[in-house]
């Protein structure tokens, strides 16, 4: 009963095994990839492990506080920023092993030539922020 975030990176992770960028895939290959993702989420819903899945636009901006009474500063995108998150999936599973197993399956989504993409997914455990019954230092 632990939540894990699977982060997909557009840019920033190590290169996938099947390293052909998506803009060079055929339409069928793109469709097959998307279908796999949808089916994967459906399987997690069916197994009672699904929490959330979202995709992010690559168009982002950087915003920061710029002092009282002043509007926030909006900047970017910064070319030097190496990391770009494409989306995520959140699962609620019994063990770390199960999280790793699921991430491995997700990474096998078909890509160019119908072969598994083998992309690196970043897997991060959530910190529990609910007050709990037994914590004692």
């Amino acid at each position, binding site marked *: *009963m632990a*939540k894990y975030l699977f982060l997909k990176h557009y840019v920033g992770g190590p290169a996938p095994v099947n390293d052909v960028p998506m803009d060079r895939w055929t339409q069928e290959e793109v469709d097959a990839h998307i279908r796999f993702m949808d089916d994967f989420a459906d399987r997690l*819903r*069916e*197994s*009672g*492990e*699904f*929490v*959330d899945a979202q995709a992010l636009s690559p168009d982002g901006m950087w915003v920061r506080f710029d002092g009282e009474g002043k509007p926030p500063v909006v900047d970017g995108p910064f070319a030097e920023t190496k990391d770009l998150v494409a989306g995520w999936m959140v699962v*609620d*599973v*019994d063990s770390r092993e199960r999280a790793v197993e699921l991430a491995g399956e997700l990474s096998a989504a078909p890509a160019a030539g119908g072969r598994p993409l083998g992309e690196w997914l970043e897997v991060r*455990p959530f*910190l*529990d*922020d*609910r*007050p*709990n*019954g*037994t*914590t*004692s*230092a």
Partner: protein
Amino acid sequence: MSEDHPGVDAALVRDVVPEVVTALVRRGADFTEAEDAVQEALVRGLTAWEDDPPRDPKAWLVTVAWRCHLDAVRSDAARRTREERVEQEPAPGPALQRDDTLELFFRCAHPSLGPSAAVALTLRAVGGLTTRQIARAYLVPEATMAQRISRAKRTVAGRRLDEPGDLGTVLRVLYLVFSEGYAGDVDLATEAVRLTRRLAGLTDEPEVAGLLALVLLTHARRSARTDAEGRLVPLAEQDRSRWDEAMAAEGVAVLQRALAQDRLGEYQAQAAVAALHADARSTEETDWVQVVEWYDELVAITDSPVHRLARAVAVGEADGGPAGLAALVSLDPEMPRYAAVSAYLHERSDRPADAARLYREAAEAATRVDERDHLRRQAARLAGRGRPGDPG
């Protein structure tokens, strides 16, 4: 009372749910169907009762759940051709036996289920919570929780009723519920105390009493465990006047009866440690030597690294920080909370710089936000960056 349903005494209704499930099973519904029908009746009831609570919620639930069950069976009667059997007015089953509810505990925590499935099914079928309440408590979508429960029921559907249950898994599930956090409108720790109390009324097994004692003694300290801002307060700094004395006394009495049976187990041993804390007015007055003895018993039973880690803290209190550190040597430094314990014992050994570094490491490795923040504060305190008025 539930925030969701102000007109209903939620605890009272939850208490009768397992009896309603078993009543339907006695009338001929199988477990899966019965549990579904009771859930449907419960959800209807919680809404309908806001304006007009029934005099006898159990009778109301049995009647409505049986009707839900008949509707469900009729709706696929053509396929299943079972109408004839279920249309008959059911014989009023024999008076409920307490073994029925015990069997329900065993089934819901069946060893074939993973922990999250067993927890969810137990909370619904024995605990009388709705799917939505369970989903909110565990911060997952309601549809996910519904699927988790359906799958769990399919997994245990074929199990024979007369199979001997595994009490160990039932206790693990209840303790898991107890130690989970709470969110939504359901306090899981309170629910776990209620369910463990219920289980203890069904069996004389000393470990069941041991778990009840443990959760009562732990729960009694809850309001002292966090301050007004939600920060963790370590045992040594807790305001013991805020401990629930009546609940702790009940825990001690339950534990004494269990220990008198002379069949020690891990929950009794942990409860004994908790009872020694309840007995002391401060950490200085705590009988740490006896605490260590109970941890020795516990480690002899479980051989668990988690319990060895807890024992090392007690050794540090009984015999000083260096002795506590010596008790750590056989443990894997990568294990959860190792760094936090090591930090504490280094501080007790007058090695504040090492302690500060280890508290920072421990904060990085924490799995809970409140623990992480606590450990960060400890690191800051040792680095001389405490808040004004803080000790140390």
